[in-house]
């Protein structure tokens, strides 16, 4: 399960990146093994979103390597990286507000290989999120916050997903809705799809994550099993500035 002996699905080494001259990531290294669910924790503004955006090619890395399976993805355009099966479900959902739920899902299967299996994939996503089937004719902008998030994750699953990257799936949702969403993420995990998830809150990582990284100020400050990391005083210091 933790992929002993298997090559990592994703390997990030010494990654530097940022916006303009603002360097946000200062040498991040991490890996995801087959079947693993990895959580990157860290307070706001420390580089979690930048990390995912750099891996998916929306931001060009200034140094370091990203290997996805046997491919070096540095220098590839985001659409090519998505075509390889590295699926990024972005923060804030980035839905197509003036398109219907169904059209949003179809766009998730834009690549030719995925489009060919449109029907089956749609069924799979509807099975996971039955609510989306009920709302399929509705415009995405009319959805509730929880439904938007489901659509965003569902749209990601429509692609050739070989690794799912989720950027703060709990953001802005009510606790009950977060619970439901995390149950679904648990189901995705159970299906064997590797997941790289970033969160600010450590609330729901126990029982979900195989390993956790703590991202502080653009570098990995700690790595370990969820229980160990949660008990680590470093966590309190990072979040609340307790020296």
């Amino acid at each position, binding site marked *: 399960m933790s992929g002993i002996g298997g090559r990592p699905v994703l390997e990030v080494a010494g990654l530097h990146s940022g916006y303009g001259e603002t360097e946000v990531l200062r040498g991040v290294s991490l890996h995801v093994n087959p079947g693993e669910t990895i959580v990157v924790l860290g307070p706001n503004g420390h580089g979690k979103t930048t990390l995912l955006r750099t891996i998916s090619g929306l931001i060009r890395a200034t140094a370091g390597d990203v290997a996805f399976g046997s491919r070096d993805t540095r220098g590839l355009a985001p659409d090519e990286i998505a075509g390889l099966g590295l699926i990024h479900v972005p923060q804030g959902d980035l839905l197509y507000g003036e*398109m219907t739920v169904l059209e949003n899902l179809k766009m998730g299967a834009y690549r030719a290989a995925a489009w060919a299996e449109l029907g089956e994939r749609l069924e799979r996503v509807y099975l996971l999120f039955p609510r989306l089937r009920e709302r399929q004719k509705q415009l995405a902008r009319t959805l509730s916050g929880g439904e938007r998030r489901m659509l965003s994750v569902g749209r990601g699953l429509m692609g050739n997903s070989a690794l799912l990257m989720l950027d703060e799936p709990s953001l802005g949702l009510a606790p009950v809705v977060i619970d439901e969403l995390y149950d679904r993420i648990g189901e995705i995990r159970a299906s064997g799809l590797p997941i790289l998830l970033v969160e600010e809150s450590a609330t729901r990582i126990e029982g979900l994550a195989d390993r956790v990284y703590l991202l502080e100020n653009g570098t990995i400050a700690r790595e370990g099993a969820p229980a160990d990391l949660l008990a680590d005083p470093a966590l309190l210091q990072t979040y609340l500035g307790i020296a």
Partner: protein
Amino acid sequence: MSQISLVIYQGLVLGAIYALMALAFTLVYGALRFLNLSLGALFTLGAYVAFVISGQLGLPAIAGIVGAFVLVGLAGVGVYQIAVRPLVGRPGWEIASIISTLGVGIVIQQLIQLVWGPRNQAMPEIVSGNLRVGDVLVIQYQRVAVVLVSLVVMTALWFFLTRSRHGLAIRAVAQNRDAAYLNGASVNRIFMLVMALGSGLAAVAGVLLSTVLISLNPTVGLSYALRGLVVTIFGGLGSITGTLAAAFIIGLFEAFVSVYLGEGWKLPALFLFLIVVLVIRPGGLAGVSAEERT
């Protein structure tokens, strides 16, 4: 009463043509966020291509329309590669691209003049004959054909944008570029597709207009490009449904002005209308107000 029917008849014909022209602007603006001012010249080019195919080679009208759509569509990709792509994303590129596409438009217009000369050319009719209704209204079959062709093109476009993979991607890119990237769409290729489609639509609008005017010259595109822009702004830049409504409203408005005030007042009235729209509703029919946009 009969005056009103004349207004409606003329307004529908104009609206059908403006709708295509304005869709060309709005598709490009929606996806790329800039005003493609070469569309006026491409509109004219479309008419000339159809003139060669149907008027000079004697092929059926439909061949002229399809030929104009395809060839001018390719020309639109050329405009993108030469005058737009090098600018995308540069600071201040919104104005830079207005200037560069305007420049390309001038070049195309001058090339048309070099090839076909500045004089008027006679455009063949699609269908001849007419139907007299009451004492004022004479319905020409030619104009009915224009409305029908426009409706067919718009229906095809609607199916393309809502049903096909690449059509969905065009709308997706317009609504959220990053998301489209993450869904695996090559934004650059979609841009080329949009430029081709927009240019092709402008070309068909040009063909239809020149069959209504029965003549064409190299500068015809300019004032119609301006009208297309008025429609586009009124409809709300980037909104397809708003644009369609605006096209027919403005077509009717223009017909009304020309029937009741005289031909010459069409353009000033139209621009006055535009100014009023911009002041009252800066975002157009379908748009949001300036404050809500921030």
